[in-house]
């Protein structure tokens, strides 16, 4: 009998933004959905986030930003993950992110952006589908 491997998620707050209600809430919801979750805390550089992903052997990196720095930080995390050979890590993001930035972020390798008002079960389903599909 094989046990299904638990999905491992790093929840991270890049930059100096202190708004972590969403990140903490999702960390809890993911854990309840059976995922293994590590929350990095605030003030993470892209390097710190990627190190955490490497050390924890993460399947998913969730990035949360409400201070308008997503266009800098999110692509940088994807880029660094690639440099470390972690191409298969799913990167998703959320926060206050204008619709017109979403296409650019997706092109940069962020799999999805979840804005305010998204249902948490939609996010869980997205992650589960993506991970089991690979």
């Amino acid at each position, binding site marked *: 009998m094989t046990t299904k491997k638990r999905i491992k998620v790093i929840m991270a707050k890049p*930059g*100096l*933004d*202190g*708004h*972590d*209600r969403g990140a*903490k*809430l999702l*960390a*809890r*919801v993911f*854990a309840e959905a059976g995922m293994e*979750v590590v*929350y990095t*805390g*605030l*003030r993470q*550089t892209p390097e710190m986030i990627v190190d955490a992903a490497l050390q924890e052997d993460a399947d998913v990196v969730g990035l949360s930003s409400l*201070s*308008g*720095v997503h*266009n*800098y*930080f999110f692509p940088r995390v994807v880029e660094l993950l690639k440099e470390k050979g972690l191409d298969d890590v799913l990167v998703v993001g959320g926060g*206050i992110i*204008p*619709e*017109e930035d979403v296409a650019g972020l997706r092109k940069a390798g962020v799999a999805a952006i979840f*804005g*305010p*008002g998204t*249902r*948490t*079960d939609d996010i869980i389903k997205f992650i589960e589908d993506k991970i089991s599909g690979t």
Partner: protein
Amino acid sequence: MFDKEKLESVKTKKEEWDCGPVEKVCAKFPERRPTFTTISGEEVERLYTPVDIAGFDYDNKLGFPGEYPFTRGVQPTMYRGRLWTMRQYAGFGTARETNERYRYLLKQGQTGLSVAFDLPTQSGYDSDHPLSMGEVGKVGVAIDSIDDMRVLFDQIPLDKVTTSMTINAPATVLLAMYLALAEEQNLPYNKVGGTVQNDILKEIICRGQYIYPPLPSMRLTVDLIKYCYEHVPTWNTISISGYHIREAGSTAAQEMAFTIANGISYVQACIDAAMDVDSFGPRLSFFYNAFTNVLEEVAKFRAGRRYWAKVMKERFGAKNPRSMMMRYHVQTGGVTLTAQQPLNNIVRVALQTLATAYGGAQSLHTNSFDEALCLPTEEAVTVALRTQQIVAEESGAADSIDPLAGSYYVEAMTDQIEEKIDEYMKKIDSMGGTLKAIEEGYIQREIQDSAYRFQKEIEANERIYVGINKYTMEEPPPTNLLRVDPKQQEIETKKLKKLRAERDQKVWKAALGRLDEVSRTDENVMPAVIEAVKARATVGEICDVWRNIWGEYRPKEFV
């Protein structure tokens, strides 16, 4: 208020009504929900009667405006004398751009300024620091040195406005810059008025803009309070903030309870620093949120005023009534805004403004309808300010003081929230005080649990949010969003380079040396900070002096 006989009769009739007409109607047409609660989960009865406030003692519970226990307001005439201060929090990009927004707002009838600093400034980093990457000028204005501060207040006489600054860990530094600027405008310190937030405990609990560990952070807080008492008597030395606690997910009662708990810590710290409670008590101010459930918010404000007055009088032995007054600023609820159908937010903000007016606030910031999408555009900011002006001038809410007093509902809810505040205070005291409760993650967990519960209620459709889980619709992506120039960091970095090259190295070095020396003793740091900013030391350089002495705070994460 009601005699025993009358109460008995109301009670009997209410029971008859419950068992008679109500039951009959409910059998045919059930109520919309099995139970009704406020957005915070406070239970709401079908009907309130005198029975719900049976022990109501007018003098003890309410009194008169401007008199203990201040339930009805802190001033005798409230808004009949002067409307609340309309103070829109603003700041983005360079000091020059923000200065233009300030002068626009003042021209539109705004009566006070409120400075939003960018995150590097709030975290004590200069714009050229590696951790400032991407953040410069984003959520507020970038201030590195007194040069920037001078531009920020260009053509604004500091004796004609009051200025609120949302700055905490580096509050001493930004206040020092403001005072140095006042000197440049030939104004004595007692001619400038305003507020610094200076509330480090809520940064640690939920807002995240901390630098140093709690104890040295508290020392800076107390130094600032003490210095202002002696030299800047009209300054509000702290704005003890529940706003962010609520934003992080707390209930209304938790917002008030944890803010008062933090307030108690500050008062105790000042007393421990040999200050008399009536010396600094009158300069303490507060900052709260206002959500859309009007009556719950009104009850929260009234309960908070009453509870704080008792704390100051009974717990700390204050004699001066001004020390017992909870004076506060309100900002409407950022998290109540939706990115979906953003124009609906104007209505939410209007209701929150009404709650604030009925609640008796001293000043108010109304959020702009586009803030779940981006920083507010000028159009949206104008609508937000007009919302206040309509409530103030047209609704009549400002014409009679505490007009909801005596409502069975409002008085019962006020009591209900006050009881919750008291329960939390007892719990926190039994844990050994706020710092202990924070250290153990108790307060953080209580807030996160409420946030979680709320999210679950929304997703289960137990609570309706228009545009989120009901009345949704397809809409085109929003346009006209405000953008901050991404070149910002380059601009600021160039300015810093120039500053560092041209300032008097000897004076600058001596000033920082002096600050280092003073900070290692019990002496008040403020004079040395003022000298340092005059010597054109930057926010980052000054904060680094303290980082070297005290180290940086690394919180445990409680998820």
